[in-house]
């Protein structure tokens, strides 16, 4: 287990270094936007990874609602947390790109607003998990996750069905992406997926350990109570 983790960590570091190099030096410079377009190699893969994690959170939440599986509950929690981190990257890098290109940091455009709503839904999910002490918390969180996941396709398809200020979809949107740019985007996507996998693995192990510690503490206090 530890060896597998080390291999994944080394592989992720290599992938991220190469993807960083490719984003800065292999990808051609875009003619209109110049170097600022390279933000796209971090912004888009981060969004895709966040969507994937929220999708896993949705599947795990449905499994939890059907089977009441503690493992599914932990996977849902971990994916929501790491998904929020990646979604935060999207919400920060987007305005940094928009400022020199659009001349504004933010606009209440449909895609941007729905992404902010998505982030708020999963932050609410994490707040619920963190502060609610009820035994019903995992159930309530799973229901919230199922409804929250509805926002993911809305964010994704908002630029397909509505005229928005956000650039058109990279894949299947009718735009023409230079093949070299496409390859660099793919490298960064793979690298960020490896990073997400590594973080999720670490966070899952922590969650398992934390629950075991809480259980042991509860048992210990029960024994102490009985001894009195």
């Amino acid at each position: 287990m530890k060896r597998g983790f080390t291999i994944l960590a080394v592989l992720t570091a290599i992938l991220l270094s190469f993807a960083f190099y490719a984003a800065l030096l292999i990808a051609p410079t875009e003619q209109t936007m110049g170097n600022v377009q390279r933000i796209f190699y971090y912004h888009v893969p981060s969004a895709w990874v966040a969507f994937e994690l929220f999708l896993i959170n949705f599947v795990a939440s449905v499994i939890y609602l059907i089977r009441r599986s503690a493992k599914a509950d932990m996977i849902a929690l971990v994916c929501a947390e790491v998904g929020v981190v990646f979604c935060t990257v999207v919400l920060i890098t987007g305005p940094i790109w928009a400022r020199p290109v659009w001349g504004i940091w933010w606009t209440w455009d449909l895609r941007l607003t729905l992404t902010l709503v998505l982030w708020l839904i999963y932050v609410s999910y994490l707040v619920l998990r963190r502060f609610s002490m009820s035994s019903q918390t995992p159930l309530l969180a799973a229901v919230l996750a199922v409804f929250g996941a509805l926002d993911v396709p809305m964010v994704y398809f908002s630029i397909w069905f509505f005229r928005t200020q956000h650039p058109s979809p990279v894949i299947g949107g009718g735009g023409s992406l230079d093949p070299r740019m496409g390859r660099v985007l793919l490298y960064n996507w793979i690298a960020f997926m490896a990073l997400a996998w590594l973080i999720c693995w670490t966070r899952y192990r922590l969650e398992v350990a934390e629950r075991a510690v809480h259980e042991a503490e509860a048992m210990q206090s029960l024994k102490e109570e009985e001894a009195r």
Partner: protein
Amino acid sequence: MNATHYLYAAYAMTWAIHGTYLYILARKAKRLRREIEKLK
């Protein structure tokens, strides 16, 4: 501000966010190790 600075800012912010989250996880792991030691 030069447009390239926005690129550096975006990349730096990305790693700052991931770094902060990893730091939070490391602190959590440290706290858990302390609790496990206490239980032993």
